[in-house]
């Protein structure tokens, strides 16, 4: 199984614009509500969706729906205002799910 997929980046204009230069498929949304339909559309034909943390924070339930599917991989990245630590907390919740306790040092 080997197909060609798009790599998408979803975020506010200021954070995401630079990703266009390295050839990624960029989409702008300033608020989570704006981003929701875009995310749904992107999930159909992207293998990886990078999403900025400030959007991801408001779209938690939408993102969780894709957690157990092979595509797309939705990866949170920090936005231009810096890291909120959301990516790490997602990793922690995966660990809690698997191990039953948080074994990562905080």
């Amino acid at each position: 199984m080997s197909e060609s997929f798009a790599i998408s980046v979803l975020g506010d204009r200021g954070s995401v614009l630079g990703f266009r230069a390295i050839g990624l498929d960029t989409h702008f949304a300033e608020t989570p509500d704006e981003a929701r339909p875009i995310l749904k559309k992107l999930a159909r034909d992207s293998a990886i969706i990078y999403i900025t943390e400030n959007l991801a924070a408001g779209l938690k339930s939408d993102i969780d729906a894709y957690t157990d599917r092979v595509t797309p991989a939705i990866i949170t990245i920090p936005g231009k205002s810096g890291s909120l630590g959301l990516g790490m907390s997602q990793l922690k919740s995966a660990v809690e799910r698997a191990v039953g306790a948080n074994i990562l040092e905080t």
Partner: protein
Amino acid sequence: MARLNVNPTRMELTRLKNRVRTARRGHKLLKDKRDELMKQFLDFMRRDRDLRRKTEEALGRFYGSFNVASALMSPEMLEQALLYPKQSAALTMKTRNIMSVNVPVYTFKTRNSDPADIAPYGYAATSGELDDALDALAEIFGDLLELAQIEKAVHLLAGEIEKTRRRVNALEYVMIPQLEETIRYISMKLDENERGNLTRLMKVKDMMLKQAGYGAE
């Protein structure tokens, strides 16, 4: 522990004994699967954690220079400079099987292979910080891709481990005790019937002896 609602017959007993044997073997296999999955998971988790730290830091640096660039240039200029990307990326995906969990493996092709030649603009109207920012981003892109791959694997493995753990627990604490309880019940019932039968036979024998006149000696 509740026992199953079955008839206490010898056939049922054999059937249950077979079932408990199968359940024990399944339990052992699932437990082994869970342990191996956990080992793999911890490995992936550590890699994910380190990679995430690294890329978040690198992205921070990229945003730093990109912000300076966007402050130095007008928004229209910036937009225009990046409007038509020279570079384009295509991704192909395969899956790898880790303990029956399908994990994606990405391979990535860029149309333009020279990493120094990605700027889609002339250098006259743009600031130097923009070049720096894009260089930095192109550099960390490989890491970003690997991060996506590993993080997806972590989440998929976590889901599978949770499922397997539930199965192991269901077998260990529900299925097997229930079957054992039922087996004990049936064998006790059968033994009881056996004893009842024996006393009855002895009684009948006594009665027959008495009738034949041998009774009072």
